[in-house]
């Protein structure tokens, strides 16, 4: 068993990044995730592993520092919260176009605009459907615990380099701020120059013993640009084949299904328990990857289901992906809270009975 610590979700991200052998973190403070860079700077990672930490002048600059270092083959990450992630969308689109790996953490807060600093899940569309311009996708991981905050850093980089594509961790203010027990992985050494060149032969590391490498998202030739887009789409289809992750609770005999990710799934789990005590056969599906979405898993359960309730801290965003999967075969409804308010398990059960059981 690895080292056990009691940590905030945001702190766990910082520690996991150092231990995953990440080369650099570039960020800009914003509530509720500033503990990530605060933890990192306090840990002196330049002494522990040689990791670079830099507070940039803006989220725009931070994501573009990530672009530069990632383009030169380094493991780089950044983190922010909703308004800051909107600013990073330009860079994320460019990185998807230029096929650069990185991990971006969004500790989501309520919006739109400056909104609130309280937790929310209203950035689902932005993360999953491509918040930046152009046809692109990211693998989106939704941690539901401090443990997963730590674990998904390493997983995120594995996927980012496997696909040469940005990976987003879509967390929220609950997971970022709460403290839980976390088991930390062993220290992985940072890649050496020789390893970087061998693993990432595409990276701009200096034109030594090979033709030059170019990192760009630009191609003015329509035929080649379309071809490039086809190549990207093929990658996203491969993600859909190989990277779907989810977890199920009490689903074997379920007649009704709750679908919830991240912090909502923790509350929904308790709601399942209460509903079952009241005699309702309810199960929970927790998508761990929001892109690719576990649509096939939902489809495979349709024969046994009388209804699906999507539970999100938003006006209803993921519910659209459930409806796409269900194709009208089973009633699908949504319940959510906004503005930083979180639903309670009892509240969920009440809404469920109202919507699906009646009177």
């Amino acid at each position, binding site marked *: 068993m690895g080292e056990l610590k009691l940590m905030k979700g945001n702190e766990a991200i910082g520690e996991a990044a150092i231990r995953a052998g990440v080369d650099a973190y570039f960020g800009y403070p914003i509530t509720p995730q500033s503990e990530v860079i605060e933890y990192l700077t306090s840990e002196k990672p330049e002494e522990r592993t040689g990791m670079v930490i830099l507070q940039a002048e803006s989220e725009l600059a931070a994501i573009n520092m990530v672009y530069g270092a990632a383009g030169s083959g380094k493991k780089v990450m950044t983190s922010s919260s909703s308004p800051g992630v909107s600013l990073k969308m330009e860079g994320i689109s460019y990185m998807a176009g230029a096929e650069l790996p990185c991990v971006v953490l969004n500790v989501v807060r309520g919006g739109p605009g400056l909104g609130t600093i309280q937790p929310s899940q209203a950035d689902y569309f932005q993360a999953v459907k491509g918040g930046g311009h152009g046809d692109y996708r990211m693998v989106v991981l939704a941690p539901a615990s401090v443990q997963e905050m730590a674990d998904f850093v390493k997983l995120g980089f594995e996927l980012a380099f496997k696909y040469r594509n940005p990976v987003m961790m879509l967390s929220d203010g609950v997971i970022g701020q709460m403290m839980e027990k976390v088991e930390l992985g062993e220290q992985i050494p940072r890649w050496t120059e020789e390893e970087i060149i061998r693993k990432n032969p595409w990276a701009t590391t200096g034109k030594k013993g090979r033709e030059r490498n170019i990192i760009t998202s*630009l191609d003015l030739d329509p035929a080649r640009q379309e071809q490039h887009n086809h190549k990207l789409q093929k990658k996203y289809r491969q993600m859909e084949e190989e990277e779907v992750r989810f977890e199920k609770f009490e689903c074997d005999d379920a007649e009704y299904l709750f679908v919830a990710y991240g912090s909502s799934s923790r509350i929904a789990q308790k709601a399942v328990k209460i509903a079952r005590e009241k005699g309702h056969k309810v199960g929970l599906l927790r998508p761990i990857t929001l892109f690719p979405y576990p649509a096939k898993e939902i489809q495979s359960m349709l024969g046994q289901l009388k209804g699906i309730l999507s539970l999100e801290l938003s006006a209803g965003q993921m519910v659209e992906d459930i409806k796409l999967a269900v194709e009208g075969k089973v009633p699908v409804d949504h319940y959510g809270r906004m503005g930083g308010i979180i639903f309670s398990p009892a509240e969920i059960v009440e809404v469920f009975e109202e919507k699906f059981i009646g009177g």
Partner: protein
Amino acid sequence: MKEENITTQDIIAEENLVYKKTRLMTDKVLSYCPGCGHGTAHRIIMEVIDEMGLEEKTIGIAPVGCSVLAYEFMNIDMQQAAHGRAPALATGIKRTWPEKVVFTYQGDGDLAAIGTAETIHACNRGENFLIVFINNGIYGMTGGQMAPTTLEGMKSSTTPYGRNTKLMGNPLKMTELVAELPGTYFVTRQAVHTPANVRKTKKAIKMAIKNQLEDKGGLNFVEIVSNCNSGWKMTPTDANQWMVDNMFPFFPLGDIKVDGKKVKKD
């Protein structure tokens, strides 16, 4: 040898060769307008990289603007940045690869409008890379719109009656501005319209890269005042003359900061 006796064979003979194609430029035909300064600026940088033996450890950043395709012409490892973000990319590369040589190549719109924050903060942090700043007072690629460096009264497609500074603000002297920051080590303004100026610019680029290799503790910033005959709607010769008569008085050539110290003007 008398002039009438020179044959083609004499001209191409090795011993008579006075100029050859820069080794680190690709064979791709330049996309720049005939008469534009970009090609010369590209060549100078590649000559310096070649002469200093830095081909295998140099990473360049191309901007958005006329030189967006600089990576097609410079035969080294290159990255292409979003508009204005080149200094952020360079920061990311240089911080994680401190032993590499890193430079950005940016126009006035890229560096002094949309990328002002990235420029100022990279300079202020004293990032150890080179910024080459091409200033032609206009947005060339998008068709000749006003730039942050467009002179007062100067016509462009968005200032068809001349830049009115009351409505459109004043031309920005970015180079003087960054020279004030403690993070810059070498700041100079050059041009490439005559052989003498080309030599001076090349010397400046060489000095900037030498400073970077020796990690003098600051950013090196080389502005090149250039023409834009297409955007200015002039012949190349007229554009160069117009540049001398109008651009140079407002953007005077010469070193502004050397070895971390401001140069005293007489």
